[in-house]
């Protein structure tokens, strides 16, 4: 068994910042990550990091924009923390040598971004995430922080008191991908989950293949409520075959969207008669899909984004990297032909419920980054607000786990504050297939038996259980996971996409149920212990199923149209009934829906909901 003060799971922007912060407090910290740190998907972020750095700007404005962008579903304490801390964190990065783009006078450059009242998006060319990730990894090397890279975390070692609020997390169970060994990691002070996005729940996403929502699923099964899962951001212009993002820059420069009939549908079909292609992300994404659904898509799949009319000179001058992307990833010469594009899953606003210190309701368990939901983004994330979230809440979680006093959190976690129970009618029972709580082959539930165990024993037990589970998967001669996974992904893209209708959502729940049942009999074909990706993908598939279900349940429950969540039957934002977060608790296998109110009360003012105008 390995033992450290703080264990960070995941080495993207959030995980790295958390580890550095914990080390700054003098803790013995280690990172366990299924990818080598520099392979994390934070590297893919292009646009920038929002931070109020200039005299003419203020954190209050940043907070206000964020709240407005969240469509009033963000919690004010989290949003204000983000806005207050990000300048300092960004300057910290700069002092660590991050290669930001520069102004004439040598200061870091900032640019305007959608939804911001001031150009406060700090950037490093079109590769901000890459620079951020590498700069932080460099600090990790400098500090000699231990990294268990290519170790997959399978499970959390959590005690099993009845109420999640009474439980404690003592460590994790890791699987060494290269050797196939399963080992326990005991964390004396805390475990920080920073496992990133969950894009693989959908079959078309800008996220990496490794973004399977493992952390969210593990925490969920250990009893932590997950929050606002239905809010998924879709990006309107991603390449159909790979999901690679084509930035808004193309439309900003004058790129035009056409359907298969060669019509400029944004105007001709009245999706956005004023802004056309420049309408907001969700509007464009829905318009594209409507075209495809109505038979005007190309190959029934995508639409065309054309920039040829801009002329070669202008294109090579301003959009050169787009030419490369289209060529390398889609085989299209964008100077000669239009680029195929379609909406792709991009970001998950929801996640593991935490307070503004990154702590969950389970003692010693923290979450930060895209897998967490403090809630900063509410129902819709503004561009450039995810990266500051990583460093701000990553740092806070790290400091807090290592014992720094950050003051009492204002956000309550678990069912400790105000809450109400919820109800949603589902066509099939959600949750565990088979006998709930049984040691089914495929289960990855968390709670280890007996709260009277010492932390070491608890981790050891969890390790043994996981060992058995892996053995069973390897031994079982069942179905391959990949069909199950793609069935779920396809159903999610068809039914829980930018368009959500009651019948479709229900169908998705049925499909997920089928998948759960099929998964009962899943087996791993590859018999090797060495680098068994077949096994890992099989385990990830289980996480995908749990998360897909959570997203769909939330979407079905929330009968309003807010932010990224569109419901055919309910076309209005309903502040009367829905200024509240959707919460789901696993409850040993049968998901329980409940709600907690949104906190609109800031430090100095209350954020009054305003109509969202496009």
């Amino acid at each position, binding site marked *: 068994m390995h033992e450290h003060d703080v264990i960070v799971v995941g080495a993207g922007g959030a995980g790295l910042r958390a580890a550095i912060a914990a080390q700054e407090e003098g803790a013995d910290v280690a990172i366990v990550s299924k*990818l*080598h740190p*520099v*392979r994390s*998907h934070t*590297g*893919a972020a292009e646009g920038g990091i929002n931070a109020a*750095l200039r005299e003419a700007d203020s954190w209050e404005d940043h907070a206000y924009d964020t709240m407005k962008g969240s469509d009033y579903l963000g919690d004010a304490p989290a949003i204000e923390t983000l806005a207050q801390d990000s*300048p*300092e964190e960004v*300057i910290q990065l*700069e*002092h*660590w*040598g991050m*290669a930001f783009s*520069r*102004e*004439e*006078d*040598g*200061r870091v450059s900032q640019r305007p971004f959608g939804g911001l009242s001031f150009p406060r998006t700090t950037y490093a060319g079109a590769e901000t995430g*890459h620079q951020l990730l*590498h700069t932080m990894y*460099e600090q990790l*090397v*400098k500090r000699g922080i231990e*990294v*268990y*890279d*290519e*170790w997959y975390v399978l499970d959390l070692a959590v005690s099993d008191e009845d109420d999640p609020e009474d439980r404690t997390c003592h460590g994790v169970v890791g699987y060494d991908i*290269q*050797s*196939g060994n399963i080992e326990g990691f005991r964390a004396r002070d805390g475990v920080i989950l920073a496992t990133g996005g969950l894009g693989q729940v959908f079959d078309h996403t800008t996220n*990496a293949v*490794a973004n399977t929502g493992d952390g969210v699923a593990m925490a969920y099964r250990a009893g932590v409520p997950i929050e606002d899962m239905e809010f998924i951001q879709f990006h309107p212009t991603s390449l*159909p*075959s*790979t*999901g*690679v993002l084509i930035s808004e820059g193309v439309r900003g420069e004058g790129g035009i969207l056409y359907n298969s009939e060669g019509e400029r549908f944004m105007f001709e079909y009245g999706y956005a008669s004023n802004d056309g292609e420049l309408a907001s992300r969700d509007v464009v994404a829905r318009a594209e899909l409507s075209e495809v659904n109505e038979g005007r898509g190309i190959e029934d799949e995508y639409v065309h984004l054309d920039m040829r009319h801009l002329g070669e000179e202008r294109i090579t001058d301003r959009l050169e990297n787009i030419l490369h992307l289209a060529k*390398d*990833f*889609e*085989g299209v010469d964008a100077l000669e032909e239009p680029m195929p594009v379609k909406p792709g899953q991009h970001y998950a606003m929801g996640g593991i419920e935490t307070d503004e210190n990154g702590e969950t309701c389970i003692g010693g368990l923290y979450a930060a980054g895209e897998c967490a939901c403090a809630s900063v983004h509410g129902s819709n994330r503004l561009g450039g607000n995810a990266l500051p979230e990583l460093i701000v809440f990553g740092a806070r979680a790290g400091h807090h786990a290592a014992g720094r006093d950050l003051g009492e959190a204002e956000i309550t976690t678990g069912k400790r504050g105000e809450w109400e129970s919820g109800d949603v009618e589902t066509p099939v029972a959600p949750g565990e297939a088979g006998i709930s709580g049984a040691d089914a082959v495929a289960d990855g539930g968390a709670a280890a038996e007996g709260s009277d165990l010492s932390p070491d024993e608890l981790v050891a037990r969890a390790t043994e259980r996981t060992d058995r589970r892996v053995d069973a998967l390897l*031994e079982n001669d069942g179905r*391959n*996971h*990949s069909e199950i996974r793609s069935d779920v992904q396809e159903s999610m893209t068809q039914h829980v996409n930018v368009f959500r209708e009651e019948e479709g959502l229900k169908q998705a729940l049925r499909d997920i149920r089928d998948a759960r049942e099929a998964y009962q009999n899943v*087996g791993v*074909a*590859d*018999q*090797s*212990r*060495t*680098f068994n*990706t*077949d096994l890992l993908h099989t385990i990830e598939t289980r996480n995908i199923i749990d998360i897909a279900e959570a997203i769909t349940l939330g979407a079905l429950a929330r009968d309003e149209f807010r932010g990224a969540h569109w419901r055919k039957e309910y076309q209005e934002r309903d502040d009367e009934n829905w200024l509240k977060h959707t919460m789901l608790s696993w409850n040993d296998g049968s998901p329980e829906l409940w709600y907690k109110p949104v906190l609109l009360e800031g430090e100095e003012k209350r954020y009054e909901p305003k109509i969202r105008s496009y």
Partner: protein
Amino acid sequence: MSTQLPEQVEEESSAAEAEPTSAAQERRLEKKRQRAEEKERQRQAEEAEKALDEEDTYHLKVFRYDPEIAGKKEPRFDDFHVPYHKGMTVLDALMYARDTYDSSLTFRHSCRQAICGSDAMFVNGSQRLCCKTQLSDLEEPVRIEPLPHAEVVKDLVVDMEHFYDQMEAVEPYFQTNELPEGELEEQHQTRENREKVKMSTRCIWCGACMSSCNIAAGDNQYLGPAALNKAYRFTMDEREGEDMKQQRLEILEQEHGVWRCQTQFSCTEVCPKDIPLTEHIQELKREAVKNNLKFW
């Protein structure tokens, strides 16, 4: 760094045998193995047929090796026929082959957009990022092997530990004695200086360059193009200050540092991020000479 490989069992006995397993489990596993073989034969047959009916397929020849599995201890090439669609990359083809034909086909990949650096492989005789390589640019059959000059862990996965060690041997982190006073004060940098280091900051640690360099293949201690480029990124960053530059040049000048580079240019040719590696290394050599001349 981290992952210490525990002592492995003898080459000959497979891991399953070495562990105490019950007879029943052994039998189950044996049956599973047999069925797997059966399935594999069936797959080969089906695929061959498919290749005949469908014209628009790509023929892949993929390197296979697994230290634990009987049929794979001796490396071999497997054939896969993958249906082609416009825009398909080598990575797409590999994923298709894995998900449809053989789930034990093993390779690293994650981002699918040339930023995570996981999937550098040896494709048709050259180090390339699979996700950034269009099938249509390649001749058939497409031969896919793990990166040369690295030890193979399994199939297309190589051990990157040595590469990481070299990257980390050059003090790959920003160090300066010239930080501004205030917490919120920026440390200014000129546009020209940022422009100078820009390309060098783009490295995604894919290891293609190191794998292509003959010198690195011969001299295991050679820092290699990627690490030297990393060092360049800091040496040329004016914000670090003169003292640091001195120290950095000393690191670079060690026996297995810049002087080992024989300007073969293959690193520059294969780098998927178009970093002018040779140019950077040469500049460091000149910088080092200038630096030494000062003290003569």
